[in-house]
């Protein structure tokens, strides 16, 4: 037993010493495509400016904890609403340092089309599949409102739920699923109607183009707030290394890369 404790403590010393090395490296939390690829793209340029970047890749739901604990310096996983949830729940001071891209959010259908007068004539009582989580459901309802299929109660925006639907002239039925399952359900139901992200449509049912876009989310002041952003803490927002990182993150090189490789699912959120 004693030996075991010695072993465990040695192990932790070794692991912790591993964590301590490279105090001058910038640790950036990433998770899903294309953020790790974008950081890889600018890694060499940052090194030329004397900044070594280390990526920490783990589940995005957990990545705000190490940022708040000062174990990492920033992360590239979320929009401001997701960050707000964390801030409110943990009394944290995370801030949006730089929006990176707007995910295209779209109403999908292989059955219906938009007619010459920009009307979408769906059948009465059609089922539409929507993401169920507290951030994406309001966004989906706002999209349906923009498409003219429903109206929401006055003043309801990014917190809207199904209860806030004012009028539903087509008598749409709403089926809520997780982001990934929305795409599967849409596929199983004969690809009639769903609101989803192209990236999930591609992952789930291998639909990686805009052939089934029925109505894309218009980019306006409200929807722009959903931009996937680079988030830091309030205390290191002005750190010169962070400023340098943002400079490279918003370079024309990155913009072009997003357009070339991820243009089917996103629009760069910087000039």
């Amino acid at each position: 037993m004693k030996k075991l404790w010695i072993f465990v403590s040695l192990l932790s010393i070794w692991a912790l010493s591993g964590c301590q090395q490279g105090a001058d490296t910038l640790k950036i939390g990433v998770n899903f495509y294309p953020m790790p690829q974008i950081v890889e793209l600018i890694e060499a340029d940052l090194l030329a400016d004397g900044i070594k970047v280390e990526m920490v890749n783990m589940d995005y739901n957990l990545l705000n904890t190490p940022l708040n604990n000062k174990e990492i310096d920033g992360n590239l996983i979320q929009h401001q609403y997701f960050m707000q949830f964390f801030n409110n729940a943990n009394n944290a001071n995370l801030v949006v340092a730089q929006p990176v891209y707007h995910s295209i959010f779209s109403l999908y259908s292989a059955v219906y089309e938009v007619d010459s007068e920009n009307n979408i004539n769906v059948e009465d009582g059609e089922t539409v599949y929507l993401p169920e989580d507290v951030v994406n459901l309001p966004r989906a309802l706002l999209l349906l409102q923009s498409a003219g299929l429903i109206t929401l109660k006055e003043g309801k925006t990014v917190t809207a739920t199904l209860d806030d639907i004012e009028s539903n002239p087509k008598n749409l039925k709403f089926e809520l699923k997780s982001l990934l399952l929305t795409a599967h359900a849409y596929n199983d139901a004969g690809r009639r109607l769903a609101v989803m992200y192209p990236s999930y449509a591609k992952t789930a049912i291998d639909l990686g183009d805009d052939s089934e876009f029925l109505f894309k989310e218009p980019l306006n002041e409200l929807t722009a707030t959903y931009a996937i952003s680079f988030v830091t803490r309030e205390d290191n927002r002005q750190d010169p290394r962070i400023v340098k990182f943002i400079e490279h993150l918003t370079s024309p090189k990155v913009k072009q890369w997003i357009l070339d490789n991820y243009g089917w699912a996103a629009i760069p959120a910087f000039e």
Partner: protein
Amino acid sequence: MFNLLLSPVDTQRVIDATIDTIVLLLVSGIISLVLGTITGFILALYGKNRPHEKKWVAYTLSVLVSVIRSIPFILLMVIIVPISFRMFGTSIGFIPSIISLSIIGFATVSRQVEQAIADINPQIYDLSKSLGANQFQLFRHFIYVEAKAGLILGYTTSLISLLAYSTVVFIVGGGGLGYTAIQLGYYTPNGQEIMWVSTIIMIIMVQIIQILGSMLARYLDKKKRN
């Protein structure tokens, strides 16, 4: 169907991930083997209607093991994150992965060891008593000898379970083949190749562990008979 030629970068990633998985498996395997074996013995010898009844000790441990095995593993990892930060100052990567794998491994090994000892012929307890063996001799010359093959098979099964659990630790930044298969593979456009290569390596690893374990158990069984 898919092209198994990975780019040099991806090849390096898979190699690193394989090493990660082996390290995770070894470290958590050793910890859970030691703790689990001790607990398994206690469960098997002190349990109800067992040779050395100490009901409360066995009952408490049994409940603990069952509770651990009931918690969904992803939840267990998420629970460990703040604890790991308080104890070791790190909430990401290797340490929380090892802690959660060791906890679940300990529970798995405990039950396997308990089963292996429960399976041996109960007459050896009377025999050892009549020969005047003390507790240590009972263990060394009777239980250990009789249960060896069963223990090895139990360890084999536990190690394979740990390997399966280790594919999920990428959620807390632990890396490994689960990370290359799921995060870089399944969740990434054009990640098909790395997904399948990682999976095939996992299959090979499970086969190696199983074959070695079965061989060792068979060999020990033969030796016992002669």
